[in-house]
């Protein structure tokens, strides 16, 4: 218990400040493996999201960074130093907890001051820093309130201020927005983005909400069953999902069971169950035929009347429009293919026009997608 500063371990490289590396990290609880051989490199000052359904191991991963769980295997390296065995109170990492975990018996200012007090900073420094942190989250006037007197959004800001006032090298956020209502959640997304830019620290953000992850992150790690399925920028994850799970989890996706016919120069030709042969499907790596899944976003699906001329760069095939659903800002069309599978298309509603023209449910239509919009995944 020598110094309250972080981490033990060897000399720290300033360039590594805020970097987090997980090396083959595994955590088991009884018979279940919550986190399974995870490798992850978080860059300094990056905003990275761990995204996945509940029980996928994202929170456990976060808790190994904060020090509340010790990995059964593997190492946790923070700011270039091996931190695997450092207890939480000696890590330069702070957490915004899902339930906020505010100290109900302390005022807002005391909550924020807690971390500084236990590190025995002098009183003036503490009050200056607390005031700054509260201003940062725009809660200056509520310093003397108790947590019980605050709204959900305000509690959330206190939790944020309480964590960032310690100037951690890495800020961990465990589903911090999940307890807020939709409007607040959207406002807080901007707020978090602003804080990330202003503070210049690494953010590791755990969420099950793909929209949150996509709008805020520099990179996203999609997790399921204790493993990272894909790590990439939001665009990469959205446009080029690496697996059926990712494609399905991120946004709405049409998944068609297809058979691979052949590949050339990164483009594949596939056959749909109803016998259509479609070319120019994106494919990563080499594939040699067999059963695959074709994924295409509803926004990229084209639906036109049977008699309409074929747009360019499109492969179209026949189907029946079975449903049109007005969604407010968009309209959603469902087309049934001859084999019974369905394709969903979504179009934004422009003022005064109908996105699907004069089409009505029951009409025979032509459906397809822009070339390069579909990608091929393992089944």
């Amino acid at each position, binding site marked *: 218990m020598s110094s309250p500063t972080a981490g033990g371990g060897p000399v720290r490289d300033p360039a590594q400040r805020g970097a987090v590396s997980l090396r083959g990290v595994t955590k088991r609880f009884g018979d279940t493996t919550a986190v399974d051989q995870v490798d992850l490199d978080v860059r300094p000052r990056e905003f990275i999201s761990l995204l996945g359904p509940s*029980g996928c191991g*994202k929170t456990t991963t976060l808790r190994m960074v904060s020090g509340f769980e010790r990995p059964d295997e593997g190492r946790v390296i923070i700011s270039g130093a091996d931190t695997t*065995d*450092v*207890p939480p109170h000696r890590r330069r990492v702070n957490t915004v907890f899902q339930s906020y975990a505010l100290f109900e018996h302390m005022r807002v200012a005391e909550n924020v001051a807690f971390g500084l007090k236990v590190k025995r900073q002098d009183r003036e420094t503490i009050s200056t820093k607390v005031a700054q942190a509260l201003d940062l989250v725009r809660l200056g006037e509520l310093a003397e309130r108790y947590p019980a007197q605050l709204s959900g959004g305000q509690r959330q800001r206190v939790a944020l201020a309480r964590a960032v006032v310690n100037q951690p090298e890495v800020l961990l956020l465990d589903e911090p927005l999940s307890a807020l209502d939709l409007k607040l959640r959207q406002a807080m997304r901007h707020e978090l983005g602003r804080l990330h830019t202003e503070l210049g620290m690494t953010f590791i953000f755990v969420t*099950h909400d793909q929209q949150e992850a996509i709008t805020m992150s520099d990179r996203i790690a999609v997790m399921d069953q204790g493993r990272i399925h894909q790590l990439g920028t939001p665009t990469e994850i959205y446009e080029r999902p690496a697996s059926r799970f990712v494609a399905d989890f991120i946004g709405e996706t049409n998944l068609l069971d297809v058979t691979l016919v052949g590949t050339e120069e990164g483009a594949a030709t596939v056959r749909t169950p109803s016998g259509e042969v479609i070319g120019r499907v994106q494919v990563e790596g080499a594939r040699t035929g067999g059963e695959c899944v074709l994924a295409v976003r509803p926004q990229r699906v084209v639906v036109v009347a049977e008699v309409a001329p074929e747009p360019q760069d499109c492969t179209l095939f026949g189907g029946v429009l079975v449903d049109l659903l007005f969604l407010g800002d968009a309209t959603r069309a469902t087309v049934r293919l001859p084999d019974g599978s369905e394709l969903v298309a979504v179009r934004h509603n422009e003022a005064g026009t109908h996105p699907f023209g004069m089409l009505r449910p029951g009409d025979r239509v032509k459906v397809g997608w822009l070339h390069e919009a579909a990608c091929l995944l393992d089944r």
Partner: protein
Amino acid sequence: MRTIARSQRRAAVALGGSSALVYAFFYLPVIVLIVFSFNKARTGGAWTGFTTNWYSLLAQNDQIKTATVNSVVVAIIATSVATVLGTMISLALDRHTFRGRKAAQQVVYLPVIAPEIVTGVSLLAFFSLALGRLNDILGRGAEDAIRLGRPTVILTHIAFCTAFVALVVRASLRTLDPAIEEAAADLGAGAWTTFRRVTLPSIMPGVLGGALLSFTLSLDNFVITFYVAGPGATTLPIEVYGQLRRAISPEVNAVSTLIFAASSLLLLSALGVQAGVARRRLQQVRPAKQGPEPNQPITDPNPTPIPQRRGQ
């Protein structure tokens, strides 16, 4: 360098060790007492051999037998009355809001917080005065006067048992969704039918539990009873107290063992019925929470209401 793991393990060992010591502290004296109730030697703390002789002697001890009968009669009457009255109070307190509700609640807590010795002597003073007036009115002299005895003991026990039942039943009423009563009313049931067909069956575990616990309470009560019993209505604890004040004897060990066994059994059956309440509560739909990770142990946020009991 497994700092976290080691310090956690050390803390766990310290916790477990100190807890084991506390449990030993609880049970060692009682176990020793039970063991020595089978000891051959009449005096002394050395083990000289096994016998059930003291229990046979007990069976022939008329004073103990009379006192036991006395205790059981008092406990049965007091519990029966208290269960009805206590349930009524808890219904009024839980299902209605009215002026003076807070004051009523505090009165219910009185038997729980009032020091028993004060209650005992106050009731002695009260009964002496009341019975004195009664005898004057009835014109009874010294020979046929009504004195302290079994009726005063029963009346006293009814008072604290009622408060106690009210608290236990109220705990189980709290877990009951008031909407089911509204549903019954909505379906056309009157107040009495609703109570008999819907409310009472739902809180039955609490009522039974409260009854069993109040039975134990009545059987065990010593201090208050000591002052209101008078010479005619010696209950078992008073008889035992008298004997053990005179001398430590293996018979006292034997009767203590029996009392301990009886109240443990009563408590366990009370808890057994009340477990029904807990089970029902577990079945209630819980709001789905976001992202529970498998590492969080699932704990019941509201442990079974713990009945509180005042000591002597």
